[in-house]
């Protein structure tokens, strides 16, 4: 499995750390209801298909990446830097 880091280029999966779904980027407000925090931390669409999730180029440039990929075919259709993501 290979991921194209927007900075380092295409690299082997072993250089990356996987965190979880894109949901982690949408941190609720500090005073949000606990249900919102529950959804943020735990509940997932978990699709069998295209999803967006978070990877960390741990052995490379230390950037967090937002990866668009298919959980069934493992096809990767997009990678962007979390720090420079568009919305």
């Amino acid at each position, binding site marked *: 499995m290979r991921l194209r880091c927007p900075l380092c280029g295409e690299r082997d999966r072993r250089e990356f750390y996987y965190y979880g779904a894109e949901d982690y*980027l949408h*941190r609720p407000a500090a005073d*949000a209801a606990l249900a919102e925090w529950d959804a943020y931390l735990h509940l997932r669409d978990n699709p069998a298909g295209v999803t967006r999730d978070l990877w*960390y180029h*741990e052995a490379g440039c*230390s*950037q*967090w990446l937002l990866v668009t990929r298919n959980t069934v075919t493992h096809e990767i259709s997009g990678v962007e830097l979390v*720090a420079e993501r568009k919305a």
Partner: protein
Amino acid sequence: MRIDGKGLIDRTKPVRFRFDGKDYAGYKGDTLASALLANDVRLVGRSFKYHRPRGVLTAGSEEPNALVEVIGPKNQTPNVRATVQEVFEGLETRSQNRLGSLRFDLLAVNDLLWPFLGAGFYYKTFMWPRAFWEGLYEPLIRRAAGLGSLSGRHDEGTYEKAFAFCDVLVIGSGPAGLMAALTAGRAGADVILCEESHAFGGRILSDGGTIGGMPAGEWLAQVLAELEALPNVRLMLRTTVTGAYDHGTYGALERVGLHKPARPNLSRECFWRIVAKHAVLAAGALERPVAFPDNDRPGIMLASAVRTYLNRYGVSLGKRVTLFANTDQARAVARELMAAGVTVAAIIDPRPDAFSVEDCPVHVGGEVIGTRGRLGLTGITVRKGAETFEIETDCLAMSGGWNPTLHLTCHMNGRPRWDEDLAAFVPMEGAVPGLVAVGAANGSMSTHGALVTGHAAAVQAVQALGRKAPDLPLPEAEDRPYVLKALWAVEGKGRAWLDFANDVTTKDVKLAAQEGFRSVEHMKRYTTQGMAPDQGKNSNVAALAVLADATGRGIPETGTTTFRPPYTPVSIAAMGAGGRAEGFAPQRFLTSDQASRDRGAPMIEAGLWYRPSYFPKPGETTWREACDREVRMVREAVGVADVSTLGKIDIQGKDAGRFLDFVYTNTFSTLPVGRVRYGLMLREDGHVLDDGTSARLGEDHYLMTTTTAAAGLVMRHLDFVHQAFCADWQVRFISVTESWAQFAVAGPKARALVQSFLEETVDLPFMGVAPVRVGGVKGRLFRISFSGEEGYELAVPTRYGEALFRDLVARAETMGGGPYGMEALNVLRIEKGFITHAEIHGRVTAHDIGMEKMVSAKKDCIGKAAAQRPGLWGPEREQLVGLKASAPISAGAHLFVPGMEIHRETDQGYVTSVCWSPTLGAWLALAFLKDGRNRHGEKIRLVDHLRGIDVICEVCDPVFHDPAGEKLRA
């Protein structure tokens, strides 16, 4: 028997080898199988379940029968395919899976019991009495099962792993693969050509023929010479591509040194990770056996293998050969045998419309319905219409047609497609992105078809790479149609084998269907068909056909099982190369490492680091004596410890304080320059992630300390928080763990010791930090303590670490102090009630450890919201307490109310850290106890069943030593 004038072996290079203790001679270029056959050794193994005598069936890695042990000077290798293993001078081998000798295997009794040992029999019996399963039945089954043996000794062989990259990976070097490699190579693409065998050429080596108007061997030599000369083509011999993985990654196993006597540093095998933009699967096809009664005797071989042994190795399996085949193509072997002077007793062709041109009896419409010969074939029974007759023969070449070698195309869950004309599965296009199957692997069975499709795939690949396809004329070659009538099984008396390796017969498959195991997956699992070392390469399709027949369905409707990696079995040592011994994970060494070892300190692992456990003195016989002394030394004089393993993160920028406020529960933006503060960090789910001190070195400059264990974790966490939530803040950070050697100096004489190193006068308040100069070197001095004594940590650039440590220790010793290790460090911190990851083990909240007040109410921070969940609060939670006892106690013990019964429901908590405190003269523990903070002063019963400890303790505050902190602030 060796045939003069045939074969590609090097007859000028004889090789001696041994099999089952007997010496034999072969030639360079022989496999063990060809050399044994040349020596008329037909019996080479015993089958898995019935221990039937078995001979060589194939000439490749798909061999199900001829599996042997190779005995090396130091170790042995089980389950080696005799059909792949090349002979070399001194090769020592033996047969396996037998009780007694190969000729007289006592377990052959199983073959007599076969009516009771059919598919799934073990699910129906061995249930009574219950205790007999582990005691009797299972050990017997285990001993009888299995194939070869491991020695039980460490594998000390050399193995390697490597990465390779290319534009086009060509798998297989028959006509299709060669044509693909040549086309891509001439186009200037970066090409890797992998060939499993020990020579390039594929079926060219076995079948001969003509290509481009010249003998195929000549064409092969020309193409190889050109490929070798191309700098952009890499030829990899003895390399099997074993797996297709995501995004153009392929696993491949190279047999580097297995065909030679062992040499120092020469690896046995190399496991390659090949990354290819395009791949061409030109792996050919595998001929399939026919299931007729007793079709498994030594002397019965696939027709293509008979041909390979004849043409490539100059060997005939028998003197009177019979051919039983349902294709025109298979007839060639009979003609070639006759041309080589071998008698062909008969050709049996089950097709009623088959031709008959050979100069030997041809039984059109005939079928083999039985065979004879206990340890090797002596004769066969043939049925033709109503007539049955015997033929004396010592070799039966059989062919039931061919299956494309499409396994790699299934590795990413692709299902193959049934091709009615070929009566075989063919690859589903696009099943592995970037991989195209060509030639026989894709069902193009003629040489012409191989050349055309190999060329076309390469053209497609080079064009996709943006290169111009070379103008390469296609050489002329044989293009006969491949016609067959599917023949899977022949009805008759007795058992007809489908899966030779796992002893699965047509009866087993029918029984599975009869018992409702009608799904192909159920049949496979119930009968174990396809689960033997050949992975069903020889049996899957036929078994499927028999199942389809038994269940009244068509083959496509019945479906097929999936092929999974690896294509051929790969040794654990090859895929795990480099993992042996210390290679499993990097070792990290402190600058004080040698100095500690010089003092006899046992070094223990702390994550990847090695840290001194204690520093023994002459006369001390146990670690406890040393530890107690070191604790007293710190409490009474001064001790020195290397604490460089703690994570250090340098954080700068105008928003640095704001950033720390966000990741810590408490506030750092208000910390004055030159001061240090203890910080607590939560995971977003509200549990404690880590703790440590952070120092403010300048207005916009902090230095964060993490625990040793969590250094990497915290860095990743900070990167996430920064990049995900505040990438635009003016803050940057980087690890400086490796940049500084840092030493704790603790004890009443700490200040004096530290002072002796500094140019400036030490006048730091507790929790202060200042830049210092140590012997002309820039350093940092922190007044922090993990021991409860007045403590400092002195940091210098790593290159000076060893010198500073040696000097610190030497001077400490003149003051009645010295170095202390992890054991003493642990005692000191327990006495003081300081927590480590033994306490913050991941299920612990700030509330649990009594630090809820450190969660600032004035600001948001990571983890604050989720920590509010009701389940993380309240008296049901176990809270950090201290325990004091007068008898030995243990970490891992559980806590109970004295007098109450001991079981799960009465469990009150557990102990995380324990020590003998020389300072307090008592056993101390840190523990988690339900509602613990309200229970100080209570007696609690500590029970460690495993260590036989049952002690009443007193519950108390976790800070045992100097609770007011007077010593710290002295």
